[in-house]
């Protein structure tokens, strides 16, 4: 199920992912993660602190992007490193439509120890939301 290290080449693309987020998803993630910051569920509060509307947890976006890597690797335990920079928030309006996040992954580097580095491109509303999004995966 996991791709073999020898069969992977730099430039290979991983199966992409499109995720639709609505307010209810942020509520569920708040409960699951323990992050109840009101900017992720309270529109009045979000606007008061200068945001255009409720925004998704940055860590939720990071987790969604990670799904492309764990889906490709098969065994989530194969992910040995994962890091991102949070560049831009994902705004989730309460309009029955919500927000759409797109994730694409590409093999960027093959390391000597049987690991490969995947670079993730995560976009919302046509712009990158995560920067320097890199995951290192140990392959069989």
């Amino acid at each position, binding site marked *: 199920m996991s791709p073999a290290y020898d069969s992977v080449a730099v430039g290979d693309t991983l199966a992409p992912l499109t995720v639709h987020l609505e307010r209810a998803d942020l509520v569920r993630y708040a409960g699951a993660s323990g992050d109840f910051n009101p900017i992720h569920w309270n529109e009045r509060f979000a606007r008061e602190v200068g945001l255009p509307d409720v925004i998704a947890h940055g860590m939720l976006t990071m987790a969604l992007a990670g799904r492309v890597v764990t889906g490709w690797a098969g065994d989530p335990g194969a*992910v040995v490193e994962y890091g991102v920079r949070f560049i831009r928030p994902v705004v989730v309006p309460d309009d029955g439509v919500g927000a759409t996040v797109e994730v694409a992954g590409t093999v960027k580097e093959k390391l000597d120890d049987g690991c490969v580095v995947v670079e993730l491109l995560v976009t919302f509303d046509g712009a990158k939301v995560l920067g320097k999004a890199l995951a290192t995966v140990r392959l069989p």
Partner: protein
Amino acid sequence: MAVNPEYAGRAYPSSRPYDVGAEKIREFATAIGDDNPAYHDLDAARALGHAGLVAPPTFVFSITFAATRVAIADPGLGLDYSRVVHGDQRFAYVRPIVAGDLLEVTTTLESVRSVAGNDMVTARSEVTDAAGELVVTTWSTLVARGAA
């Protein structure tokens, strides 16, 4: 009031161990929309060689951020929590986290600085198991934007 650079290197131990539960792993995986069997089905996790359900790679943040929050809320640090945004996040695993793990976290303020009016603090959390072995190291960089 700018952040206090003398707080660099200060360490904060875990308040109490965190009991990684199978149901919480299932709940978290569902919340991120991931039906990977390793997160939900014990037989599938075991077939991959794990002792229990595997936690998704970002799951541990819930634990490390609780510890980080204690560190960054230290009044002597001088970080204005009301203006803090999450800048960067990174995880480096020794082994995956599985249901049944009992984890403790020590958080160190690895870097404390002011750059162009913005305060930036990097908190490094070392997560160890009941045997005292390192499981994962995480780094969270938090940014408090300046008044301008």
